[in-house]
């Protein structure tokens, strides 16, 4: 919005959120990443190399699909899909990863570590490291290695070492803890290629900047197709990288409503919706909304989607929620799976279960906004990795007692 100062400020604060709640041992490395990014973003050679990769390797610009059939299930509103699922490696994650991998080389570092939940960020990171000749270690909660076994195999095929994390809740948050522990011990030659818009400054800004292209492309594409800006932009929110990706270019457009759809899980008592069900606190290096008990202990999150199964959210989302510029609502597992099924059947597109939360949100928005509305949805990833989960959920496997029970 034109009358508010740009975020973050020089210390990485988004209003009262963000900042750097990190061990002193990592401050020098965070400063180095911040300084190198400021240099790289103004370096035409870096930008040219990144642009070339995005075009010839990732396949940008990604398409905008007019989802006419699906729109009939959205109160008749016109739903446009930003097809990040068509990127190489199958999600938006590759945008950030290529930029940070190039940054790693600029910093003279030879080893990359990363966390992953659904495996999308891990696969993208393993891919970039294979391309650029970097050593790669991916931390993944043991529970997620089970849920996303196919992506574990993909990462290993690409030459990455996948380390199952067997402590805590054995999901994404524990993978991040473990990656930070690795980083502090190996920071002289290792870059932590953070995968979402969370963590200590400068990660929320760096990851946002590298994903800015998504919303910028979509803004042009929607105008070219419809002659106007969309009424609403919808995205799923776990850590929030794909949502910031599509929101950022629209933030100055006050007439465009921004909607983040959090993973509501099975309802308020078993959820991953940190903005709608959580409270402000400090987690993974930043002040933000998180799921915590009265003593500040992190509560276990739940979502059918491994990629959204995170008890906090990026600080810029906390800020956008506080200022009212963006709205956040929970989508239950069941609502997401119904939208997943619908998109498969009406458009022939199998979405990631993460992205299905945004689709379910678009259905609600369509009912509210009516048939004249244009709704842009970030289809952040494809659902190949989720076929097992979805087949079990819908009982599509022959002789699958678990599926039949649904």
């Amino acid at each position, binding site marked *: 919005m034109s009358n508010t100062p740009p975020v973050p400020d020089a*210390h990485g604060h988004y209003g009262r959120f963000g*900042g*750097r*709640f*990190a*061990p*002193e*041992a*990592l*401050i*020098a*490395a965070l400063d180095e990443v911040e300084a190198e990014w400021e240099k790289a973003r103004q370096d035409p050679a870096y930008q040219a190399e990144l642009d070339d990769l995005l075009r010839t390797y990732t396949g940008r610009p990604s398409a905008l699909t007019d989802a006419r059939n699906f729109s009939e299930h959205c109160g008749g509103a016109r739903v446009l899909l930003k097809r990040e699922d068509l990127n190489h490696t199958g999600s938006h994650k590759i945008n950030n990863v290529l930029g940070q991998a190039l940054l790693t080389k600029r910093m003279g570092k030879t080893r990359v570590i990363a966390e992953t939940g659904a495996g999308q960020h891990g696969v993208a990171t393993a891919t970039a490291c294979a391309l650029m000749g970097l050593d790669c270690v991916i931390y993944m909660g043991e529970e997620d290695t089970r849920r996303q076994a196919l992506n574990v195999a993909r990462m290993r095929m690409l030459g990455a070492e996948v380390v199952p994390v067997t*402590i*805590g809740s054995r999901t994404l*948050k*524990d993978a991040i*803890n473990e990656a*930070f*522990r690795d980083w*502090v*011990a*190996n*920071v*002289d030659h290792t870059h932590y290629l953070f995968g979402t818009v969370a963590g200590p400054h400068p990660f929320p800004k760096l990851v946002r900047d590298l994903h800015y292209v998504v919303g910028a492309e979509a803004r042009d594409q929607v105008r070219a197709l419809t002659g106007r800006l969309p009424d609403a932009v919808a995205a799923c929110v776990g850590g929030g990288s794909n949502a910031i990706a599509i929101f950022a270019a629209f933030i100055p457009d006050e007439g465009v409503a921004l909607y983040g759809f959090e993973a509501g899980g099975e309802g308020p008592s078993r959820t991953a919706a940190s903005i709608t069900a959580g409270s402000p*606190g*400090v*987690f*993974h*290096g930043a002040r933000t909304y998180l799921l*915590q008990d*009265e*003593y*500040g*202990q*992190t509560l276990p999150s739940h979502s059918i989607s491994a990629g959204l199964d995170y008890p906090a959210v990026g600080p810029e989302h906390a800020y956008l929620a506080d200022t009212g510029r963006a709205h956040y609502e929970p989508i239950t597992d069941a609502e997401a799976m119904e939208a997943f099924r619908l998109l498969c059947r009406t458009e022939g597109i199998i979405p990631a279960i993460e992205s299905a939360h945004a689709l379910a949100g678009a259905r609600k928005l369509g009912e509210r906004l009516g048939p004249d509305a244009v709704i842009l949805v970030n289809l952040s990833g494809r659902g190949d990795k989720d076929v097992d989960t979805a087949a079990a959920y819908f009982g599509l496997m022959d002789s699958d007692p678990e599926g039949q029970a649904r």
Partner: protein
Amino acid sequence: MTATTLQTTLAETRAAGRAALIGYLPAGFPDVESSVKVVEAMVEGGCDVVEVGLPYSDPMMDGPTIQRAADRALAAGTTTDDVFRVVEATAATGAAAVVMSYWNPIERYGVGRFADRLAKAGGAGVITPDLIPEESQEWVEASTAAGLDRIFLVAPSSTDRRLALTTDACSGFVYAASLMGVTGTRAQVADTAETLVRRVRETTADSGLPICVGLGISTAAQAAEVAAYADGVIVGAGFCQRVLDAPDLETALTAVRSFAQELAAGVRR
């Protein structure tokens, strides 16, 4: 401002020409009542200062031993209020008691309320491993009002500018991380430790702020080595490991007491 018990204790050990022995244990490990007994054994064995850990669900700076100890404490139902009970019992032994806590539990409790409760329980200060001076304004105000010491960390990667900034913000002592890594025992003391202490010493020449070294110290020989150049030697995982390994509390107390005695002899060599 009157001196805290931590400041007094470190002045006394310095006057005695030796380094202080600082032991760490999470409150509530293995349960609240037992953790008080373990702390008493640590003090009987020779700890001058006890860091009472506030067990946290996401201890990003801790290795597996302290993670396990904190998990046990949380599983036993330990809360922030229990931490104050353990602090009170620690202070009653005559040792200086400080709390070591990640930032979120303090913020969640209410920064001012936390400081007041800790001061009332006889605590001398707080070590904050994931709080840097730039983010500490509220904590500076609350700890000053409550008369508590603020202990921030410095690391081998800290620039000279940050060493000055951080030591300026500290009172009681500055916690020098001996190496780049998480808590846990190591075969030898990293050679980064002595270099860091020397660098910090230059910035604290005027204030005389004590410098205590932690991370990876777990034997009497290592304690003696560090005591030769630092004002305090901090041991954590070694105590936790002895409690984890013991089949029952009595065995644990004996092991902890004799371990503290060995370390206490080390800092006096």
